[in-house]
């Protein structure tokens, strides 16, 4: 067990390092010099000696491998550098914003998973019924509607037509609840379709028919014999969905003006604030690697037959 855990951690660290190193090289490939961008941004009169001083201060005159090791050491000790734009430490900025993003992302996923599982069960229980149609409609809407557009329409309906919420002056409920609902809305359809597929397979199996023959109700037999299969399919599909959630929260944060991490990154992209990018990529890569490995472990625990 410990050897397996060590191997797992090693693989996780290795894939994270590979992604982060690739991103590091990619950011260095950018056509404009960060020092020039910075000097233009802070409106300082530039000269060769000033540029050279900044290059030395930021360590840009070292070889690439040394720069990377230097950066990696800083990242691990939460020294993530300083934003060009605000001059504040990036780590503190992210730490203040992370709770919002995490609340939206996790809240949305929990809603989507529980709702999707229930919807998928009822959709499989009665194919072609109301739950089935609803789950299919949600899946299609999730693919065909841009998330930000759905958010705007939500604002319009709740804020203007029904006047249930105070759109822009709202407190933390409006700030977190609506984006959470938006994230959940876009994951609910796929989750329910996956669960439905898992349960549908059970319905074709001989043990389900035997359970019916023994006199169990359809719903009872499906729940008793099928929920393990349903959970397993859901977990298999959950990993990519959790990895993608970062994109989903980004859009929700922007539409509803939530002060989360992604909102900051979009600002940074618009203002070419490169200091924000590298830690962001590292965080996203860490999250994706953790989610994929976590899902693999969970599936193995649920179904020991899996390799």
């Amino acid at each position, binding site marked *: 067990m410990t050897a397996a855990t060590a191997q797992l951690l090693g693989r996780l660290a290795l*894939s994270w390092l590979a992604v982060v190193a690739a*991103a590091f090289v*990619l*950011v260095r*490939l*950018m*056509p404009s010099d960060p020092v020039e961008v910075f000097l233009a941004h802070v409106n300082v009169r530039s000269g060769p000696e000033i540029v050279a001083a900044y290059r030395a201060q930021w360590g840009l005159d070292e070889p690439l491998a040394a720069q990377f090791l230097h950066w990696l050491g800083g990242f691990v000790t939460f020294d993530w550098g300083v934003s060009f734009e605000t001059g504040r430490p990036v780590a503190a900025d992210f730490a203040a914003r992370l709770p919002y993003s995490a609340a939206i992302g996790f809240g949305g996923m929990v809603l989507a998973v529980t709702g999707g599982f229930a919807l998928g069960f009822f959709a499989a229980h009665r194919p072609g019924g109301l739950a089935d149609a609803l789950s299919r409609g949600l899946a*299609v809407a999730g*693919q*065909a*509607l*841009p*998330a*930000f*557009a759905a958010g*705007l*329409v939500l*604002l*319009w309906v709740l*804020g*203007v037509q029904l006047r249930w919420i105070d759109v822009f002056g709202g407190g933390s409920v409006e700030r977190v609840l609506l984006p959470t609902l938006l994230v959940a809305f876009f994951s609910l359809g796929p989750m329910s379709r996956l669960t439905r597929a898992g349960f549908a397979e059970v319905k074709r199996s001989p043990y389900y028919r035997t359970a019916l023959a023994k006199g169990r109700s359809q719903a009872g037999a499906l729940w008793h014999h099928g929920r393990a299969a349903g959970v397993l399919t859901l977990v298999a599909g959950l*990993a*990519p969905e959790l*990895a*993608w959630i*970062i*994109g989903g929260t*980004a*859009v929700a944060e*922007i539409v509803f003006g939530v002060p989360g991490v992604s909102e900051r*990154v*979009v600002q*940074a*992209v*618009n203002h*070419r604030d*490169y200091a924000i*990018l590298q830690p962001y*990529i590292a965080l*996203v890569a860490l999250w*994706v690697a953790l*989610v*994929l490995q976590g899902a693999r472990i969970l599936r193995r625990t649920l179904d020991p037959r899996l390799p």
Partner: protein
Amino acid sequence: MIRGAFLLAGFGLAASAALWAAGYLQDPHAIDLSTRLAAPSAAHPLGTDHLGRDLATRLVWGAAPSLSVVAIVLAGGLGLGLLAGGLIALAPPPLGGGVEWLAKTTLAVPTLVTALVLSAIFGASILTVSTALLVTSWAPYALTIAVLFDRIRGEVYWQASEALGATLPSAVRRHMLPNAWPALGGLAGADAGRAVILVASLGFIGLSADTGQPEWGAMIHEYRMFLFTEPRLVLAPILACTLVTVLLHAILDRGSN
């Protein structure tokens, strides 16, 4: 799917010709402050925006960035996927295994994050968006094609064509691709839809390719303060997005059901 692509191209041509004939390919920037926020009428079928620009004309022009990205992504994704899928199935293990590992890893890369990072580094353009989509969408094609290759190599007709001395490209074209279309069409339909949505999303957050040109996401962003007073300005581009996504899906994904 080939038929679908031709159908799509023909449909696009016919639509542009009809639009040109009906006078919708005029200047989308023509400002007329005397008809600000006009309601739909014969002269302006969808009305005008806050600068008196014709909404229908801007909608039509706004299709250009989305559709060019869709074309690049479909062609590139299919080409790359075919190449990588062939490598996974046919190349010697170290290379094939490496490509397979890369494809499986790529499956988890979030598209929007890639697009954000690439636009930060290289600036926002149609090429940046297409690259972000390509980077994250070649893997499903590659893995699907690799599985098909594996399956087809056990078939008698494939072995017969090998025995007859058919070259690999011609065998691929004749025996492999026709079998692959249904599965690939489904992927392509989903990808085309994702491309339209991603272009609009990036436009909405202010990273559209060319801020001067009309683009659906940028239009939604520009008109969002009229959401409460003139909802048609916001709803029209949203509906255009949805309609194109569903249409692309329906046309490309015909073989799979």
